C-alpha cells in the first residue's frame, strides 16, 4: 500500500515538475520576445536622443560694409551673394591668434560646420543693419565637435585614432572656458531638409514627403476600399464573382510589398509616364497595398451592423442604396476609420515599394506638392543608415524615434476612435 502511494507521489511530482517546466517555457518565450522589443527601442532611444540637441559656437564676426555691400544698397540679393565663408574664417583666426601654420588653420576651420556661413548670411539678409559692425553669432559646430561634446568621441584614445586632434581639443576647451560653446535644442533637425552634413540635416523634407504620400494614399484607398467592402457585404450575391474577389483580396494582403513597387515601376512610371520619385506615384502604390487591409476591416465593421437596422429602414420604405448609405455605412464608419488609420500607419512605415519608384534621391528642398520629387520618412532613415558619416548614426536613430512617434499617435487615434465611437451591438 505504502509502495503504491509512493509511486503515485513521485509520479505526481514528476508530472507536476513537467507541468511547471512547460509553463516556464511559455513565460520565458514571452519574456525573450518582449526583451527584444525593449532592447531595440532602448538602444534606439539612447542613440537617438542626442540628435535633438546640437552644439553651437559663439563667434564675433566682423561684417565690413565694403566687402558685403560696397554700394550700401541694402539689397538682399547683393547681401546674399557676398562671401561669408571668408569672413567666418577671418573671425576664427582672430579668435585664436596663435594659430599660424596652414594645417592648423585647416583644423581650426573644421571646428565649425561647413554650412555655418549660411547661418550668418541668413541673419545678415534678414537684418541688413548688421553690416558695418562686428557682431556675435551662434553658429553650428561641425559634426565631429558635436559628437565630442556629446561624449561620443573618447579623448583618451591615441590622437591618430580619433576624428578630432589634440589642438582642436585645446581650442574646444578654451571655448568652453569662455562659455562660447554650448548645446542647444536642434530646431534645424525638425524644420530643415536633408543635407550631406550631419549637423545640418533635418527631417522636414521627409516628413512633408510622407505627408503628401499618405494624403494621396488615403484619398485613393479609403473611398475605394469602403465602397468595395459595401459591395461585397451588402450588394453582391454570394456567388462565384464574390468568392473570386474575396480570394483575390486575401492573396493581395500577403503579396510582398516590394512586388507592389515593381507594379508601380512597370505600370505607373513606364506605361503611364507619371513623374518619378513623386509622392503622387508613391501614394498610388501604397494605396493599392493598403486596399486589402481597408477592405477587410470595413467588411467586418459592416458585418457587425445588426440586420434589424436594415430591416427597419426597408420597413420605412427606403431603397437598398438609401438603406446602405443612410443607415448601415454611417453606423459602420468608426470601425472603417479605425481600420483605415491602421492601414495608413502600415503605409507610413513602408519603404521597399518607394525605393522601386525612385523616392530615394538626395533631395534638399522641402517638397511643395504631390508632383515634386520627394523622399519619405522611412526612406530617409534608410538613406541615413547607409551613410558612412558617424554623425548620421544619431540622426538616423532620432528620425526613427520621430517615425515611431507618428505611428504611436496614429494607433492611439485608432484606439480612441474605437473606444469613443464604435457601437457595441
Amino acid at each position, binding site marked *: 500500500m505504502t509502495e503504491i502511494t509512493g509511486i503515485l507521489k513521485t509520479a505526481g511530482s514528476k508530472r507536476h515538475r513537467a507541468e511547471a517546466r512547460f509553463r516556464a517555457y511559455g513565460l520565458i518565450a514571452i519574456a525573450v520576445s*518582449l526583451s527584444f522589443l525593449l532592447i*531595440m527601442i532602448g538602444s534606439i532611444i539612447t542613440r537617438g536622443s542626442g540628435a535633438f540637441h546640437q552644439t553651437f559656437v559663439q563667434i564675433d564676426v566682423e561684417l565690413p560694409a565694403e566687402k558685403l555691400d560696397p554700394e550700401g544698397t541694402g539689397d538682399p540679393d547683393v547681401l546674399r551673394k557676398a562671401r561669408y565663408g571668408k569672413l567666418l574664417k577671418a573671425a576664427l583666426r582672430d579668435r585664436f591668434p596663435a594659430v599660424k601654420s596652414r594645417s592648423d588653420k585647416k583644423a581650426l576651420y573644421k571646428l565649425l560646420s561647413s554650412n555655418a556661413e549660411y547661418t550668418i548670411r541668413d541673419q545678415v539678409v534678414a537684418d541688413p543693419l548688421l553690416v558695418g559692425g562686428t557682431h556675435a553669432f551662434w553658429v553650428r559646430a561641425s559634426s565631429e565637435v558635436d559628437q565630442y561634446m556629446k561624449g561620443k568621441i573618447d579623448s583618451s584614445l591615441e590622437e591618430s585614432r580619433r576624428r578630432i586632434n589634440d589642438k582642436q581639443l585645446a581650442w574646444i576647451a578654451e571655448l568652453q572656458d569662455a562659455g562660447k560653446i554650448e548645446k542647444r535644442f536642434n530646431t534645424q533637425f525638425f524644420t530643415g531638409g536633408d543635407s550631406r552634413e550631419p549637423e545640418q540635416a533635418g527631417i522636414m523634407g521627409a516628413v512633408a514627403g510622407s505627408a503628401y504620400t499618405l494624403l494621396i494614399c488615403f484619398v485613393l484607398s479609403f473611398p475605394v476600399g469602403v465602397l468595395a467592402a459595401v459591395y461585397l457585404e451588402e450588394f453582391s450575391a454570394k456567388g462565384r464573382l464574390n468568392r473570386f474577389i474575396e480570394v483575390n483580396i486575401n492573396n493581395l494582403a500577403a503579396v*510582398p510589398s516590394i*512586388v*507592389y513597387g*515593381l507594379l508601380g515601376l512597370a505600370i505607373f512610371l513606364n506605361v503611364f509616364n507619371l513623374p518619378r520619385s513623386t509622392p503622387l506615384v508613391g501614394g498610388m502604390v501604397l494605396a493599392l497595398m493598403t*486596399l486589402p487591409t481597408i477592405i477587410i476591416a470595413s467588411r467586418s465593421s459592416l458585418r457587425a451592423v445588426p440586420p434589424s437596422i436594415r430591416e427597419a429602414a426597408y420597413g420605412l420604405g427606403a*431603397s*437598398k442604396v438609401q438603406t446602405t448609405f443612410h443607415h448601415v455605412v454611417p453606423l459602420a464608419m468608426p470601425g472603417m476609420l479605425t481600420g483605415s488609420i491602421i492601414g495608413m500607419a502600415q503605409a507610413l512605415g513602408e519603404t521597399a515599394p518607394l525605393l522601386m519608384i525612385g523616392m530615394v534621391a538626395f533631395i534638399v528642398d522641402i517638397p511643395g506638392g504631390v508632383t515634386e520629387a520627394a523622399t519619405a520618412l522611412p526612406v530617409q532613415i534608410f538613406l541615413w*543608415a547607409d551613410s558612412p558619416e558617424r554623425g548620421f548614426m544619431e540622426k538616423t536613430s532620432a528620425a526613427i524615434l520621430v517615425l515611431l512617434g507618428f505611428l504611436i499617435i496614429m494607433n492611439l487615434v485608432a484606439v480612441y476612435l474605437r473606444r469613443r465611437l464604435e457601437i457595441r451591438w
Partner: protein
Amino acid sequence: MAKGLYVSETAGMSIIKRGQRNRLSETAVRLILILCALVAVATTIGIVASLLFESLRFFQKVPLTDFLFGLEWSPQTALRADQVGSSGAFGAVPLIAGTLLISAIAMLVATPLGLMSAIYLAEYASAKTRNTIKPLLELLAGIPTVVYGFFAALIVAPMLRNGGESMGFEISSESALAAGITMGMMIIPFISSLSDDVINAVPQSLRDASYGLGATQAETIKQVILPAATPGIAGSLLLATSRAIGETMIVVMAAGLAAKLTANPLEAVTTVTVQIVTLLTGDQEFDSAKTLSAFALGLLLFVITLILNVIALRIVDRYKEQYD
C-alpha cells in the same frame, strides 16, 4: 424587398417617375460599387501582367533554364560590347539559397518563441495578463521593417562580430545570422497571434475530456490541443515563412550584396529581394538584361509567396471548418 416597395409607390405618376429615376441611380451606384470591388482584381492582374511582360523580355535574352538552374549570379552588363565577361551571369540559385538560409534562421528563432508565447497566452495567462501582453507582442509587428534593418545592421551585426571574435569565430559583418535573427524577432507576433487564434478555436470539450482523464494542463496541451491545432499552426508557420521570404528592408540593410552559394550562417549571403532593390535603384535602362532580371526575380518571388499563401490559407480555412 426593394421591388415590393416600388409596387406600393404606383399611387401617382410623379411617384412612379421618381421610382424609375431611383432605380436608375440604384443601378449606377451598384455599378460604381462593383468597379471599386474590381480594383482588387485589377491590381492582381496588373501585378501579374507587369511581372510577366518584363520577365518575358528578360527570358528572350537569357534562357529560362539558365535563370532557374544557374549557379552563378553576376548581373554586370558591359560598357563596351567587346569587354570580357560582358554577358553577365543570371543564375538565381545562389539568391534562392541565400533567401532560404536567412528565412530558415528567422523561422528557427521565431517558431519556438512565437508558439510558446501563443500557448502561454491562450492556455495559462489570465484575461488581464493576456490583454496587456498581446498588444505588446503585436507592437513588434507594428514597427516598420526599416527600423529592424537599422537595428540588424548597426547593433546586432557588430555585436555578433565582436562576440564571434572573442570566441575565435570569424563572423562577417553582413552575416546571414544577423539578418535572420532580426527577421525572426519581426515574425514572432505573426506566429504568436495566428497560433493563438488557432489554439483558441480548439473546442473546450476536448480540454475537459482530457482533464477528466486526469491529464495535467501541460499534458493536455501537448497531447490533445497541439495535435488538434497542428493544421492551423502549420498554416500560420507557412504564412510567416512567406512573410520572411518577401521581407526586403532588413536584408537590404543587413545582408550582403555578393551572391554566394553557402549554407554557413556566419558568412554574407544575398537574397532575391536585395538583388531586386540593387538592380532597380539608380540608373535603369529598360532594354538591358540587368534591369529586366529584377522583374524575373520579382516574378519568382511572387510565385513562391503566392504558392505558400494559397496552401496556408487553404489549410487554415479547412481547419476552421472542422471545428465550426
